[in-house]
């Protein structure tokens, strides 16, 4: 059991080198770019750089992701492998302006 767990834990480490990193910036409570294009069918690491002084919560029901990114800090969110399509996301703390979409293709 524990060996199986170790193998499972080792899997992502082995795949890490191949994971594409996609930068995403939060500025003035907006995502830049608002349209994030990612390759379909592979895991992707979104590196979110919050340049506002205030925290933001990256949230997407479609991607099944939710993460608070404190002001002035960077954080990683792994998504996918995704089927081709559009996956909207938003900033829960500033829902009026902070909107974006991941496009897997």
């Amino acid at each position: 059991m524990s060996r199986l767990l170790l193998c499972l834990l080792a899997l992502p480490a082995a795949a890490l080198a191949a994971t594409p990193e996609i930068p995403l910036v939060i500025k003035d409570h907006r995502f830049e770019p608002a349209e994030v294009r990612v390759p379909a069918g592979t895991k992707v690491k979104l590196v979110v750089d919050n340049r506002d002084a205030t925290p933001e919560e990256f949230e997407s029901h479609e991607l099944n992701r939710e993460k608070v990114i404190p002001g002035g800090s960077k954080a990683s969110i792994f998504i996918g492998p995704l089927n081709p399509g559009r996956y909207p996301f938003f900033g829960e703390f500033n829902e009026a302006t902070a909107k974006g979409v991941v496009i897997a293709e």
Partner: protein
Amino acid sequence: MLGAAIIVFRETLEAALLIGIVAAAARSLPGRGRWISLGVLAGILGAVVLATSAGYVSELADGVGQEVLNAVVLAAAVLMLAWHNIWMSRHAREMVDGARAVVRQVTEGSRELSAVALVVALAVLREGSETALFLYGMVAQGEAAVQITLGGALGLAGGAVLGLGLYAGLLRVPVRHFFSVTALMVLLIAAGMAGQCARFLIQGDLLPALAAPLWDTSAWLSNDSVLGSLLHVLAGYDARPSGMQALFYFATLALILAGMRLVREARPAGPRLGAPAAT
């Protein structure tokens, strides 16, 4: 103000409902009010500390420190809830059988209540730190303090009212069914937390997602609908769960149920001291 109220309400709801359920489930244990208050207090203190160090935590573990922390907190809460349910399943049988009206030993009760207090503290810690971060953000954006305080208080009150409502509702359940109802609710909450724990580990790339999503019921019942989010809090509902999430959910469900059954069937070897023979 309304924005603050809504977000604080959403963050409070989960902890409030959990507290409502465990407070009801622990109704037979003397001194539970003190323990639960202690849990809330410790949770709030922890949340403030966590919120002030959020930037630091976030950049730990190559940018997934928050996921690791959330997963650990959730796993600890699941363990405590599991233990609570397994312990209660024997205690409840004795209560319903009329073998004893109160907990035999004060120490036994306090050990159980310390687990309850820890669950409460962990829930408040998790939801509270996000609330604190959000409110801090509003202050930093130059929103009027009065508005923020009012909104926050309104949201908090809303969550608390629902938690209290659930608690009061549960206490009206007849004793015969009471422990089955609360055990079922605790069981589902624990399984849901285990599923969330898996989701954080996947989000941090520490576990594979397996099938993602395993199914998609968002067209019928989305996560952000009122019913969907209530079911999410109470039973771990997710419209688009990954395979790993479902695995954690059902494995936790099965393990706790098995533990409850084992404990219920294991009868003490000797005659029970101080307890009249149950017919």
